[in-house]
């Protein structure tokens, strides 16, 4: 999983049936330098992920990419390749 900061939400009208009712968030991935600096900046190339946890704008999440991102919809299939797996409360980094 990578880390990303929620920068906004996406609403689709219309959308394919598989995505109806899902919450989509725009994520900005966080680089190691920005994570260490705790400056609230991301720095990566943004992407859209499904969020079922209710992450708010500005919160940091860890997101799964690839086919595993569609696992939560099993046994149904979903055209999803990024999924918010956890919302970060805090991160403790030790020695580098």
């Amino acid at each position, binding site marked *: *999983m*990578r*880390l990303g900061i929620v920068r906004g939400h996406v609403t689709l009208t219309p959308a394919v049936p598989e995505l109806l009712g899902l919450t989509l968030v725009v994520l900005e*991935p*966080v*680089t*190691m*330098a920005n*994570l260490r600096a705790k400056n609230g900046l991301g720095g*990566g190339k943004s992407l859209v992920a499904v969020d*079922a*946890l*209710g*992450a708010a704008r500005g*919160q940091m999440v*860890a997101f*799964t*990419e*690839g*086919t*595993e*991102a569609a*696992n*939560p*919809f*099993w*046994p149904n299939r979903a055209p999803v390749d990024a*999924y918010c*797996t*956890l*919302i*970060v*409360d*805090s*991160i*403790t*980094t*030790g*020695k*580098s």
Partner: protein
Amino acid sequence: MFLARIDGTVVPAAKHATLEGCRFLVAQRLEADGSAGAEPLVLIDLLGAASGSTVLVSTDGDIARERYGNTTPGRMVVMGIVDPVQGTGRAA
């Protein structure tokens, strides 16, 4: 699979229901020359890897599905902790 160095731990405020009780670590992917990747990764740890240690990570979600069920989005799992004595010399 790839090698990564553990940088710290993640405390989740919320997580997917299948991953209740899991330990999450922040790590950086290691290149062959020992340099670290620019983006941090969050790993599921089953083995108790300590901060600073080098681990082997699999990006296949199979072991996560086996342990946490078919609906888990878990993917990157720590498969082992690299023995620093037998490592590249840069480990640990």
